[in-house]
């Protein structure tokens, strides 16, 4: 495959097909603040982007002249790569900015850093940070769009969207589906974004894991919780297997990985006792043998690799809605920035 894929779609026709109406947000911070219609709009836009780019493999130029900064204060390989590629597929310029190479090590505050980048005339900031709320704090200080690429255990909206898109592709309408989110709910931004997105679209969510990782308090939001995977297994249409985030714990939430895997790992035996068309997701990186055994991770019901492709599609859609919508809004200042 070439590093510089050919531009295949003419900007005019596709640009007119991509939506700008129905989207009123400058930022994408979490799914909790979006309506079901807005979530569906992103998903529909993602489908359009996927088609227009021949399955996310080719480049179009609807965002030519836009500049997107990846501002990552926490390590990431797949999400950062996915955002970069999504922006490039739409023709935008991408600048990667990681905390270790920045002036942050010189004591500059992250808000100062972001404001400096903004002053260079960028269109959107994709931010990942270990602290919940940091993208929200940035959004309050910047005029450009802020896209949350994961803020600690709080939110990872594009992950939630790509999970939902993957389910929708396989099973259709989410209404009436039962989705089990299994594992480290306490530390999982993926769990929270799935929870908001799925319930808004009419799915039923069950949170499953040991009490040290699944708080009873979730019931106060009307969510079912369970500590027994085998009990809920026959009812689930989808299982999303969340990684145990050992790095975020002071004391281990369970006695051993062996015991955890015994109680909660998705293996072939459990697969046999599930619905025949059960769909399995995992946000990755997966710990094979902990949340999921290798054979199940690679079985036909696993959508793990579809999730990766849909991640590109969803991120293209989000970048389009946040940068493209602004372009369309006839913002002379933005035009000047692009000319310069």
């Amino acid at each position, binding site marked *: 495959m070439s590093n510089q894929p050919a531009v295949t779609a003419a900007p005019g026709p596709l640009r007119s097909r991509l939506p700008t109406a129905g989207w009123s947000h400058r930022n994408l911070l979490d799914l909790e603040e979006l309506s079901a219609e807005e979530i569906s709009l992103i998903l529909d836009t993602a489908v359009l982007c996927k088609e227009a780019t021949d399955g996310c493999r080719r480049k179009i130029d609807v965002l030519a002249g836009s500049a997107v900064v990846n501002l990552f204060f926490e390590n990431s390989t797949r999400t950062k790569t996915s955002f970069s590629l999504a922006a490039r597929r739409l023709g935008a310029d991408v600048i990667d900015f990681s905390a270790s190479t920045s002036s942050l090590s010189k004591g500059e505050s992250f808000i100062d850093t972001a404001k400096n980048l903004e002053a260079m005339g960028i269109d959107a900031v994709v931010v990942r940070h270990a602290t919940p709320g940091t993208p929200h704090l940035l959004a309050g200080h910047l005029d450009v769009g802020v896209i949350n690429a994961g803020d600690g255990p*709080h939110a990872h909206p594009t992950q939630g969207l790509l999970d939902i898109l993957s389910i929708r592709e396989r099973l259709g309408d989410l209404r009436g589906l039962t989705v089990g989110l299994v594992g480290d709910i306490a530390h999982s931004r993926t769990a929270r974004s799935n929870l908001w997105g799925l319930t808004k679209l009419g799915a039923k969510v069950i949170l499953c894991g040991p009490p040290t990782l699944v708080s009873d308090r979730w019931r106060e939001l009307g969510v079912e919780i369970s500590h027994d995977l085998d009990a809920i297994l026959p009812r689930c249409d989808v299982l999303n297997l969340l990684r145990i985030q050992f790095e975020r714990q002071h004391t281990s939430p369970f006695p051993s990985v062996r015991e955890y895997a015994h109680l909660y790992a998705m293996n072939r035996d459990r697969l046999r006792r599930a619905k025949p068309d059960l769909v399995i997701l995992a946000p990755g990186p997966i710990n094979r043998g902990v949340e999921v055994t290798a054979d199940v991770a690679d079985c036909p019901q696993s959508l793990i690799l579809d999730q990766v492709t849909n991640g590109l599609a969803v991120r293209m859609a989000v970048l389009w809605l946040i940068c493209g919508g602004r372009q369309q809004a006839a913002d002379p200042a933005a035009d000047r920035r692009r000319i310069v």
Partner: protein
Amino acid sequence: MASMLIRGGRVVDPSQGIDRIDDLLIRDGLVVAVGQTGSQPLGKVDETIDAEGLVVTPGLIDMHVHLREPGREEDETIETGTRAALAGGFTSVACIPNTEPPIDTQANVEFIRQKAARADTCNVFVVGCVSRDRAGKELAEIGQLVEAGAVAFSDDGSPVYDAELMRRAFEYCRMFDKPILAHEEVLELSRGGVMHEGLVSLSLGLKGMPAAAEEVMIGRDLALAEVTGGRLHVMHVSTAHGVELIRQAKARGIRVTAEACPHHFTLTDECLRGFDSNFKMSPPLRTAADVEGILAGLADGTIDCIATDHAPHAPEKKLLELDRAPFGILGLETAVGLCVTRLIETGRIDWLRFVAAASQLPAEILGVNRGTLRPGSVADVTLIDPGLKWQVDATRFASKSINSPFDGWTLTGRTVATIVAGRVKYRLQ
């Protein structure tokens, strides 16, 4: 020296059981009398203040203030902090010793007293460290600190973690009849936390500080106070169950007193939904049920007094990621407005109880000769307009910092004049 007549105000002095429209006469920095001046020979009065429509109280006392000096003068100094106190109606503050260096020697106590004298603002009572270098390993030279003028002891900012050291501190302080002001927190339970542990922290993915982290330590210290006969003062109690533990302990005769902060009876953890670090403090904002528990504790006297835990932080420090931003909010300049709005206007407590909580009882706990308008006492007086509606504007604070979540709020009740030893030190412009 000068004389002053404060005429026609509603004088509220729980130490004498007074709550009536009356005059207050001051001479040579001391209270002469509360009483209708028509019936007694006045002599020449140098200054008359018309207090009609105002509440006249013994000067308010905030027994929990971080003045930050020495060491963190970018946040606050003794001068700016005490000016903020005056603007808030406080004629006295007790300054907490978690400075850099901490106040654990006679020389450090003397430094604060000299700085305060030079500022010539309000009274500053010095709280000394319980432990040397506030390190929690061995007792500070408590007797020397008492000699230098320390009125109480605290390692606030941190709990005294070693239970045996806390026991020794209670025992040793009995000799001087000084209270230990305790920050109650089991650090293993609150480690890494930025807010109350509950449904909100769960939704926001923020590390929580469970109510139990505070309550377990209150329980330990109550047991130690009981076994030693020492005096425990629970600082900034924030949970309903914590209030209940103190209520039970008082019924058992344990020598315990407690304070609550205006933010803890006004705000809840819901405020964190905007991720604003101005709502980050320790102990954290808790739930509506906890707010109710504190209000009930203030009403029935389980919580003796109101203290602000005034904790200034320079704006650039608060403007950080939520887990890097420091704990603490300003308190001095919004306290009266919050108390009138949240406690008195709502009928939860009356003026007598408020003045007891904000003046008389802090003076008694600290053992300082203030908090009363009895004839012959030092004429520290606060004049409050109980009906004045005003908007909080943090940029106009006397404090050096602006970290108040109440910025922009409209409050009822404001200090209009603050008089220290017979001299008007603050007047609302």
